[in-house]
């Protein structure tokens, strides 16, 4: 077993360092904590050959994840397909387009399985027996499923008005599911109080620094699947903004370790217009994130006061990228475009990513002749309500060849 290269938790604001422990906020300045590593310890030991020799899951990059030894939870998660999307590329008028499809991430069909498996692995290492989260969908299902598979007790907090499909998508795993009445701010505050009071591993609260690191594996996989190359342009959906910062971190780490060459990768963030505080800050050329009240069909991205917004803004500006936003109508159009050109049914967040990518391409922010990667992070089967009335209804006939012949003739079938 290789030696861990994890050094400490470091405050992103004041730089104060802490021993590895289940905590997320700097005691000095209340800044967020991040896992930092001693990359020098990996010098010459973490090679392409070593990674390629390992099973195809997210743990093939375990040296760059904040766990001790082998994963305790979610050992088979990750390593989703990266496809070259030629038909969509043609529709968008670009030369080289790839789609990273985390809508088929194991086991709950979203990229949250990556972050949750790191959070829960770390929770087990810390000795927690109960894990928890507050979620409007993907995170709830992922915590419930991964906890069940690991034999951990789990509590999942959801808003009262959550769609039935998402409630079922968590409840099936036997979790303790708590539905909370109230306005978003009240629900959010209660969950913060619960996280502070009970001695649980709350995945995006006290184990958040570890949880967030799981997102890096999406970036590692993209670079490996591109033949050990960093893409030129990456478009990601933004809720808290964490994914944007972590993919950027993954690319910088691979460059530092000599696994890929620096390709001057530009990061682009996508939000729904009805909840676009980070995009607005980029467009306004400021680094202040003004909180908003969310109103969009892209509920998995509806975070009005994003904790990592400032850092995502910085990443986009420093990398030469940009941010964009799309209306609910544009989200649905993009979901249909993705489905009809590439056979991928993404959730609303996927529509946001593609819709924004289209705008960024059309406006010239992303050049048409360089490699582009779109990150699709969730599955459309979970947000069916968004497109229920937007797709063709089946034509009903009797079990009669004559009736079908009429229909086929009307379609011009010979």
């Amino acid at each position, binding site marked *: 077993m290789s030696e861990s290269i994890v050094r400490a938790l470091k405050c992103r*604001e004041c730089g104060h360092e802490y021993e590895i422990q289940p905590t*997320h*906020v700097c005691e*000095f*300045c*209340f*800044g967020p904590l991040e896992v930092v590593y001693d990359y020098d310890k990996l010098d010459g030991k973490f090679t392409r050959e070593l990674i390629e020799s390992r099973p195809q899951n997210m743990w093939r990059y375990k040296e760059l994840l904040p766990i001790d030894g082998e994963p305790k939870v979610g050992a088979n998660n990750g390593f989703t397909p990266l496809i070259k999307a030629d038909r969509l590329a043609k529709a968008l008028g670009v030369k080289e387009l790839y789609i990273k499809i985390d809508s088929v991430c194991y086991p709950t069909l979203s990229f949250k399985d990556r972050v949750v498996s790191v959070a829960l692995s770390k929770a087990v290492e810390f000795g927690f027996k109960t894990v928890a*989260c*507050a*979620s*409007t*969908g*993907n*995170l709830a299902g992922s915590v419930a499923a991964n906890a069940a598979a690991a034999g951990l007790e789990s509590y999942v*907090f959801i*808003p009262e008005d959550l769609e039935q499909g998402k409630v079922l998508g968590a409840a099936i795993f036997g979790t303790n599911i708590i539905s909370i009445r109230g306005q*978003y*701010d009240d*629900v*959010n*505050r209660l*969950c*913060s*109080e619960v*996280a502070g009071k009970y001695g649980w591993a*709350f995945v*995006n*609260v006290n184990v*958040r620094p570890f949880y967030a690191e799981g997102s890096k594996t999406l970036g590692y996989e993209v670079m490996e699947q591109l033949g050990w190359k960093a893409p030129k342009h990456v478009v990601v959906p933004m*809720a*808290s903004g964490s994914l944007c910062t972590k993919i950027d971190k993954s690319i910088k780490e691979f460059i530092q370790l000599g696994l890929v060459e620096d390709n001057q990768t530009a990061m682009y963030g996508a939000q729904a217009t009805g909840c676009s505080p980070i995009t607005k800050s980029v467009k306004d050329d*400021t680094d*202040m994130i*003004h*909180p908003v009240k969310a109103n969009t069909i892209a*509920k*998995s*991205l*509806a*975070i*009005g*006061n*994003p*904790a990592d917004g400032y850092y995502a803004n910085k990443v986009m500006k420093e990398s030469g990228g940009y941010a964009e936003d799309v209306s609910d109508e544009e989200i649905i159009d993009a979901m249909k475009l993705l489905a009809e050109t590439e056979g991928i049914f993404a959730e609303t*967040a996927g529509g946001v990513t593609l819709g924004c990518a289209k705008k960024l391409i059309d406006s010239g922010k992303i050049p048409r002749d360089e490699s582009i990667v779109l990150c699709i992070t*969730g599955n459309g089967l979970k947000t069916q309500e968004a497109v229920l009335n937007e797709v063709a209804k089946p034509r009903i006939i009797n079990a009669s060849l004559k009736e079908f012949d009429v229909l086929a003739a009307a379609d011009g079938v010979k």
Partner: protein
Amino acid sequence: MKLRVYLNFDEKSVTSPVIWKLAKEFDVITNIRSASVKEGMGLLGLEIEGETSIVEASARWLEAQEGVHVEPIEQNVMEG
């Protein structure tokens, strides 16, 4: 108890001495950990310490101030 919150101030409330008023109104210890004012917006990381009922009442008072938004230190605990 100790309560840790972030306060967002809008352009109007940013010049109001909210923390001074809070300390006058309630028997709590206020401890500012971070603060910035930029482009018509103020951000403050604040710890409030005291009797549980008084701390809770002071948090409700803060929420009732016009142009002041109170968030848990984690900002958004709820995720997609």
